[in-house]
């Protein structure tokens, strides 16, 4: 295709450059977040949090306002000590860099689509880059809705690793090109778009659940006077858990829909909507595990820690479907270019 100004080859070049740039900026954002955590290492938990978790004192009037917000991540700057100010500043730099990396990443995925003249999800390289984009997108949305800057480090580490592996592994990187015929279907576009979005949300949910596990363990084990470090700048474990739940509540119906769209596509492509192909099997396993997660949250004795572990298992099955099955299993879903 020749658009006059830029041709497909140039879009490919723009896309690759944008991916490299995005990976570098994500790495910088990750560095800023590492500094954020490191700078808080010696800082004691904000007084409000220390007080809140001490033996059941009657709550001061007005404590109904966002729990322990004073001094926690994202608090007004003028109330903070110098050290806290440093932590705050690193955190903000991390977020700004993540936004920049996200925009570049978006350009990369968009240019890839223009280069290949189709939706950019026909092979593993494209699944990885688009999936990682969905992770950052889900993070930025959660950041806006629930002020989850405390996820910054884990998210940037994850995305940097995924993009780095995709760019640097010759077996995964493929230049943009057209698709095998089975992939020509708008149901595929819907299926993959929904799966990528759900996957992004699953990732944010899993990272929140992980932090929930760390935080609730710390709350149980750490004496009040020893409470220092970044973990204590997170909201209380109940709030972290609530964020994890909300993200999962968004992701599970979407994943259900993604599986449905996949089944419809399979019906058009292969004449059966469900065939227990390894990829389908693992999509089902992921679905069942997340159903168990939602179920566990309503089952006595399974809330909290157990539910969070189930959520992590769910994300592991999702990743395995994407990495393990693509690489090791053969089935209708394994395509050219890995």
């Amino acid at each position, binding site marked *: 295709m020749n658009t006059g100004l830029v041709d497909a080859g140039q879009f490919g070049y723009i896309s690759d450059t944008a991916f490299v740039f995005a990976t570098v900026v994500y790495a910088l954002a990750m560095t800023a977040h590492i500094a954020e955590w490191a700078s808080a290492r010696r800082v004691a938990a904000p007084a409000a949090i220390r007080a809140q978790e001490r033996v059941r004192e009657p709550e001061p009037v007005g404590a109904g306002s966002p729990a322990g917000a004073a001094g926690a991540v994202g608090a007004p700057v003028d109330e903070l000590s110098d050290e806290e100010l440093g932590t705050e500043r690193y955190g903000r730099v991390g977020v700004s860099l993540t936004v920049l990396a996200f925009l570049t990443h978006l350009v990369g995925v968009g240019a890839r689509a223009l280069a290949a003249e189709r939706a950019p999800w026909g092979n593993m390289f494209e699944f990885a880059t688009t999936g990682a984009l969905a992770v950052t997108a889900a993070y930025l949305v959660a950041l806006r809705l629930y002020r989850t800057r405390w996820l910054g480090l884990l998210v940037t580490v994850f995305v940097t690793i995924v993009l780095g592996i995709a760019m640097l592994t010759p077996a995964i990187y493929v230049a943009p090109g057209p698709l095998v015929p089975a992939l020509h279907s708008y149901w595929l576009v819907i299926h993959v778009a929904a799966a990528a979005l759900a996957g992004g949300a699953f990732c944010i949910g899993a990272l929140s659940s992980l932090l929930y596990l760390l935080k609730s363990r710390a709350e149980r084990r750490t004496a009040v006077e020893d409470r220092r470090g970044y973990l204590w700048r997170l909201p209380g474990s109940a709030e972290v858990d609530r964020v994890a739940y909300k993200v999962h509540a968004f992701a599970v*119906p979407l994943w259900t829909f993604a599986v449905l769209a996949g089944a419809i596509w399979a019906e*058009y492509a292969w004449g059966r*909507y469900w065939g227990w192909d*390894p990829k389908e099997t693992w999509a089902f*396993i992921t679905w069942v595990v997340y159903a168990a997660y939602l*179920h566990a949250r309503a089952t006595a*004795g*399974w809330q909290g820690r157990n539910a969070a572990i189930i959520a992590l298992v769910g994300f592991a099955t999702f990743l395995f479907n994407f990495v393990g099955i693509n690489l090791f299993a053969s089935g209708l879903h394994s395509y*050219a270019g890995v």
Partner: protein
Amino acid sequence: MRRTYTPAPALSVLETLRWAWRQLTSMRTALILLFLLAVASIPGSVIPQTGVDPSAVFAFRESSPELARWYDRLGLFHVYSSVWFSAVYVLLMVSLVGCFIPRARQYWRSFRAEPPNAPRNLDRLPVHREWTAVDSGAVVAERAHRVLRDRRYRVRRYVDDRGDQVVAAENGHLREAGNLVFHLSLLVVLFGVAYGSLFGFKGGALVVEGEGFSNTLTQYDEFEPGAWFDPASLDPFTFTVDDFAVTFETAGDQRGAPRSFQADVSYVEAPGAPAQQYDLRVNHPLQIDGTSVFLVGHGYAPEVTVRDGNGDVAFRGPVPFLPQDSSYTSLGVIKAPDAAPQQLGFEGFFLPTVAFDEQRGPYSAFPDALAPGLVLTAYHGDLQMDGQPQSVFVLDKERLRQFEQQGGEPFRILLRPGKTVQLPDGRGSISFDGLSRAVRLQVSSTPAKVVPLVGVLAAIAGLVASLFVRPRRAWVRVGRRDGDTVVQAAGLDRVAGGDLVGAVDDIVTAIRPRSRDMEHA
């Protein structure tokens, strides 16, 4: 001591059953069964499955027969229809029904119930507002009623024992309804899938370009009927593959990857119906009544002529070969039962683009037919074609002898199009006349496909409702205290995490008139 051993047996059986039922229908059991279902699904993604890749199962049996015997005993080659896998999901479904019925009954009761009375002390509720109004109690209560009804609360008004007017409101019944719909839909999906696989079928056929297919059992190379499928229900259509075109990527990383396939077919829906045209492509199946015809692959059908020792034509025509890899190295056999004095058979590969390699010998370098060739070995003897029906892809070598060169090496043939090779001892010849393509078609019918589709859509809708709807109660109490009209409003969320403060404030703002600011909190 003895007295402790006198249980009433009838009761205890009943009790045990009741206990078992309670266990089976508990949330915890449902959770454990869900895990079991996830774990039970794993082996089928690792071990080759008959329903997914029969040739992989065949290869597995060849390479590890001992293990295969064990797998057979455990049903591991067809996990998803095995007894133990079925047991898990049947238990889950029974548990689900056991859960569903009492909950549906309870839902029905609560659905018909009126919003409950206000608690005595509204100021003990999590969110509570109080103010004095200038309007009369009746006016404020009327307004509160309207405000709450507009916000889609279910509303009831009454006067309590202190003589205060109370507006009690409740909404969010949809949450529990959604949950029930979700669980019920799972049953619908299961039912739809089961129906489709019991009454449906799936078959495959390789059809050479220019040839026809009629939808009867004998025309299929493979056919998997559902347990209750009736062959008489096959739709009586026929079609001919008029033309087939395929293109491959010719450069770059993905050289050799298929880019497009298309078959032009003319079909007749039923005997006597007019012929119609269709362009059959991947993702573009031909639908005839409830049956769909899919283009799932393609292969080559070299056209050959076999002459026997007398110089007579013993066989002539295209012979489909089965593609084995992405370069379309294809396996096939040629049978000439009419050859005299002995029958002739050939076995070997068709290579679309012949290339040579020191170790491997001839191989195919590209899937398109750029430099096609046949690599065959030849046999004479008895093909044993008069007994059981034989596969057209296999030579029964029991009563066949291989042609040999001097020195005992098998006699190998490399045939290019337009060429003829003579067999040893004047026993005949084989010519490669030209090349046709063959399309691999899958023909299938899955009745009641819409049932699982509707089921999943309903499940999603139910799930969304049950995750996002928040049941909420709100009360407004209007009373006279010391000559003033005092209004109290309060709310209670039945699930955590909602913006109750916002909701109550919204109600309060709507009840208090904006213009007359004579009121004070």
